[in-house]
């Protein structure tokens, strides 16, 4: 187990904080003095999972780096809603890169810091690069793979909402099968994104055998903070992939963002694990397993599966994919034995 829940019964360690927990066991998000890296007034939609995930991750990174952090940010939702000229929501040193080169920009910043440190002109400053799934798995993949391969000292965080959301919900290589977008089959026998396409970037990152790869969701704050803090304690190329539900692109109610992230993990659709040098070292077990329908039916992008004649076969294929994850990563307790 990567993250150990405390033997504490009122709310366990599932809540953000708890007045009965020791200070050191509370999350960064529970602190009055948290950085609030991404401040109020940003223009993200109601219930935006990415805005939430970014604040969770960068606040934790700021905490781990004692406030000495620079972030490079790919074009995408996160950049668009946080920095309409001349305003910014960022309360940390932050630079906007092109859509595809944020990993390379971060590499450059890290290299510059290294030189300045050698010259004694500055102390240690850590570098984070961040982007959505489009900027990471599609457009910026070449730069990212290079950053991994060179083992540059950058933590790359991908906020995966499964599509290009701010431009009108187009498909990306992280869009899950059967999910409808503006650029997938709207009608026909199998509407929505095709099966057998796309990529799961955490696995590709692991194939680079970089020091640390992890996945997380906005529903597991303790786990997410644990992983960011652990990554910040390491040097070299590190990659964290955070599932961030998108009420707009997924066609979900704004209050269901965390519920959906939780269901993605509890169904097995999104495996939550960590890996060091290409080997899985820990998984977050499923606590209350649910069938995939519970996750799918809350989202309009899957509404075609639940029409007058439910697409039983398609749902079964999605369930099979979730079951495969459960087997592959040992997400259920009995399978761990």
């Amino acid at each position: 187990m990567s993250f150990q829940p405390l033997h504490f019964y009122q709310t366990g360690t599932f809540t953000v904080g708890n007045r009965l927990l020791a200070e050191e066991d509370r999350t960064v998000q529970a602190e009055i003095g948290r950085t609030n890296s991404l401040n109020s007034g940003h223009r993200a939609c109601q219930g935006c999972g990415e805005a939430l995930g970014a604040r969770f991750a960068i606040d934790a990174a700021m905490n781990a780096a004692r406030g000495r952090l620079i972030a490079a940010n790919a074009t995408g939702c996160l950049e668009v809603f946080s920095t309409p000229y001349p305003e910014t929501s960022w309360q940390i040193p932050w630079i906007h890169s092109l859509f595809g080169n944020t990993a390379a920009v971060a590499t450059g910043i890290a290299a510059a810091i290294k030189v300045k440190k050698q010259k004694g002109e500055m102390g240690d400053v850590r570098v984070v690069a961040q982007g959505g799934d489009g900027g990471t798995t599609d457009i910026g993949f070449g730069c990212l793979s290079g950053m991994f391969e060179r083992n540059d000292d950058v933590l790359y965080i991908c906020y995966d909402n499964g599509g290009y959301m701010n431009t009108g919900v187009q498909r990306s290589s992280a869009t899950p099968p059967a999910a409808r977008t503006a650029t997938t089959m709207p009608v026909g026998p199998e509407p929505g994104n095709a099966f057998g396409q796309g990529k799961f970037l955490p696995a590709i990152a692991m194939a680079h055998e970089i020091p640390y790869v992890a996945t997380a969701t906005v529903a597991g704050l303790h786990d997410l903070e644990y992983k960011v803090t652990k990554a910040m304690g390491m040097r070299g190329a590190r990659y964290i992939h955070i599932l961030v539900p998108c009420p707009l692109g997924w066609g979900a109610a704004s209050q269901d963002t965390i519920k959906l992230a939780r269901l993605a993990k509890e169904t097995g659709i999104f495996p939550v694990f960590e890996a060091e040098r290409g080997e899985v070292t820990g998984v977050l077990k499923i606590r209350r397993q649910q069938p995939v329908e519970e996750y799918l039916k809350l989202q309009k992008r899957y509404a075609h599966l639940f029409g007058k004649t439910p697409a039983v076969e398609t749902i079964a294929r999605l369930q099979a994919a979730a079951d495969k994850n459960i087997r592959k990563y040992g997400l259920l307790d009995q399978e761990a034995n």
Partner: protein
Amino acid sequence: MDKPFAITLDPGSSLANHTGSWRTSRPVYVDRLPPCNKQCPAGEDIQGWLFHAESGNYESAWRHLTKDNPFPAIMGRVCYHSCEGACNRGQIDEPVGINSVERFLGDEALKRGWKLTAPTAESGKHVLIVGAGPSGMSAAYHLRRLGHRVTVHEAGPLLGGMMRFGIPKYRLPRDVLEAEMQRVVELGVHVQLNSKVENILDTMQDGKFDAAFLAVGAHIGKRATIPAGDAAKIIDAISLLRSMEGEDQPMLGRRVVVYGGGNTAIDVARTAKRMGAEPLIVYRRTREKMPAHDFEVEEALQEGIMVKWLSTIKQADESSLTIEKMALDSKGFPQPTGEFETIEADSLVLALGQDVDLGLLEGVPGLQVSDGVVQVGSNMMTGHPGIFAGGDMVPAERNVTVGIGHGKAAAKHIDAWLRSEEYVAPVKHDTAAFENLNTWYYTDAPKTVRPMLDIIRRQSTFDEVQGGLDESTALFEARRCLSCGNCFECDNCYGVCPDNAVIKLGPGKRFQFNYDYCKGCGMCVAECPCGAIKMEAEEI
């Protein structure tokens, strides 16, 4: 104009952008009424005192509890804890062991010698209380705390009323009872034992009392007309239990038959068992129809007490009883079958309910009595202004908790009446339903089982049957509380807001919404474990 190339504006903060204007509905913090509090006949703020107990602050918990009920050590033993039946946690695993934590707090207070809070000012008014049972002593406590002079007249030789003369000591040890009674007396409550009030109006006039609260209880055992031979030994249950408190314990013989199906019948049978007799309960209906609480029946059966179901007693003789078998009709009422049976019995104890001795009320104008009990209004006042009544002598369920609740309610109304005002109870919050909770956040934790005395000692001694929790198990049990409908500062709303629109005010101060930036997504409501936030439509 000292700006970089192509830059014309100074960098600004997004705080200039008040995203609160997007909102069509707003989250609002609420306090909902937990089902346990709603259920409690004594009106305890159970969730409130558990909140303190959860942090290990037992004295604060005890002080919070005793605002409503001064007898937690007694309650933690004899209350039928209907709160636990209402507990939302019962729908997750098992209800919180509220009763056992209450007992722990009560025992802790006795061990540490915590004192009740004394009144800060005297009102100059003098209230008479008749009866030193749960209801009378509860009223005495609350009236004293409100600054009134209180005098209690008790007909019996000791404090406690039915708690002493009705509840056997294996359920309520006498040192616990005495200690909690004395703690109320120490507040400056004047008690006159062995002083039966013969006429309430005379006593009030003699003592120049401004108001009176009657709580004489129901101490007269009901008799059934059973044809009996001269030598048959028939005694009523309440006299038997009362005589257990004296020097001369009653001689019952070996084969004791207890007639009735209520809690008193069980108490008598278990008492007889401990005196070395072989008790047999005779009851005219079935176990399902028995008014006694199921756990008491279960404990009695464990101790080897026999029950004869569907039977009535037709005739009592010196060493035998004639019993007629009954059958339930289609409406569930027992009907005689004409089949008779003789059983051996040295004595017969009648546990058929109790009546109220209303002698003291003769000639009181305006007073209304029906079905043998005194009628009172919702303010606990009888038809005679200034005379209030509660406990077993008014129409209500007869148990200690209800009595304590009456005492508290009456005290509030008497206090208002003495000032020529009317007490208006604050409006109750909406109930915190199970549907209001997000149970994901609570870990599974089964209820802590209280230790029980071994069966041999239960059959032969009057030692207390049910044990208490120790500190670690009491803390565990308190922390199983879901805090239904009341913020317990888990920081979820503060953490899950994508817009940082929740302001954390610090320990004990809870949170506040920043409506300048709240977009009204509702995530805080969905992720609040205890249902302490609700969405309200925005006026547009």
